């Protein structure tokens, strides 16, 4: 059977990311902040804390907690997004918080909270991945003690092709085997998975291919994160 998806819609290679934008320190008032963009998907993140946690019943006497808030701004999509939390954003906030918390040394400040705010300025798929990448950079810049960074990427199976960094038009692909997209977050050095969400159907052997693709893509993203944290303003979109 011949594949219907021979070339990517935006003419990228199957293992190519969109042009990346990355910068830290974009919000002077925050303890740490960063911007991360995959092409048209732009996310900013701000980190506050560790700071005292109220209400007190949420405090954990053994460790600090990470309180993550993911939100898409009303103008981030063509059809105005209703502001405020919804089912989707609450779920993403939770998984993003967990993805980040696994590398942070939370036992250092018991009973405190680290607030992570992720805002999506512009959306064209992979918003949670861009958000987590920005948040990881913001956490590092905020001087939070952490084992390593995390990097996040979406891997797609469009028809029978494994692709890196999915765009909206690919997510909507219907020919052949259709579209599957998998959001991965991996620790940047050891490449352990801290977050994985799968939307669609995929064969077991192809899934392992997707994991390998994610490792490859996360390494590329990690390099961008390091460069940005060392003071470089990365903008490949120009």
């Amino acid at each position: 059977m011949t594949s219907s998806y021979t070339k990517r819609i935006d003419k990228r290679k199957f293992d190519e990311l969109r042009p990346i934008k990355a910068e830290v320190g974009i919000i002077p008032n925050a303890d740490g902040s960063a911007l991360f963009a995959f092409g048209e998907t732009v996310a900013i993140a701000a980190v506050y804390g560790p700071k005292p946690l109220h209400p007190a019943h949420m405090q954990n006497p053994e460790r600090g907690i990470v309180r993550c808030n993911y939100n898409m701004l009303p103008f981030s999509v063509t059809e105005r997004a209703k502001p405020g939390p919804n089912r989707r954003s609450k779920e993403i906030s939770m998984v993003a918080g967990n993805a980040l918390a696994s590398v942070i040394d939370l036992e250092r400040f018991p009973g405190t909270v680290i607030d992570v705010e992720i805002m999506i300025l512009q959306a064209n798929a992979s918003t949670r991945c861009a958000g987590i990448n920005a948040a990881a950079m913001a956490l590092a810049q905020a001087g939070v003690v952490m084992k390593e960074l995390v990097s996040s990427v979406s891997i797609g199976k469009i028809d029978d092709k494994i692709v890196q960094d999915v765009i909206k038009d690919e997510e909507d692909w219907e020919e052949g085997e259709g579209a599957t997209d998998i959001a991965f977050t991996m620790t940047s050095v050891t490449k352990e998975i801290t977050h994985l969400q799968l939307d669609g159907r995929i064969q077991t052997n192809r899934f392992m291919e997707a994991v390998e693709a994610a490792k490859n893509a996360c390494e590329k993203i990690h390099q961008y994160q390091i460069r940005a944290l060392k003071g470089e303003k990365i903008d490949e979109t120009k």
Partner: protein
Amino acid sequence: MNREFNEDNEERTEMNENNYSEESYDTKKERKLVVPGEVIEEGDDYLPGDFTRKEGNKVIANRYGLVEHNGRVIKIIPISGVFEPRRGNNVIGRVEDITFSGWMMDIGGPYSAFLPLMECPRFINRNNIDEFAGIGDIMAVKIAGVKKGGIDLTLKFRGLGVLEDGRLIKINPHKVPRVIGKEGSMINLIKDSTKTEINVGQNGYIWIKGDLAGENKAEEAIQLIVRESISSGLTEKIEKFLGGKE
């Protein structure tokens, strides 16, 4: 677990002091900026210090900051992040709440701080605590102790007490040494040329009192130091800035 870690660290410092005479290690390496997870140095010659860990023979960063080699020990000097309270720190705080036995104060950092009535050097009527300091008042205090989930403050040292009037600004606590300068040279420069009183807390809270123009000028100068803290010739820049208007 925590205690073990500390003891371990102390041991390392001692070891370091003993080996300090061996000048075979490059102590004057340029300070490198590292990110969490980055391998700083490889080999058995190195020991992990503050904010680093050892995995196999690699010394790895646990925090964003500048690397400092001190003999065999490698540590990271943080350049960002919230104030981490230590016993003995002189800080500036704002009264957040008054309880029957003292003041709750905001001094930044991960925990709220408490100044007990007993730690106040003069007699205060228990029924009228806010006569000494009310909510919103600014005080210079010293950290008497940091315990799990709270900070204890004291006023029983010279130079501490309520700061009347003036304004409070907040900066990154890691920039405080730059604002003060060598033996207070920078802060004295600002004080003299703006004719203000300035009190810098180690928590990055700064209290300024003077006439309006002076306060504004001093605040701008401090913000300039914070922005340009890594550039060379900072003192000259500040001198030029302060001399500019007069």
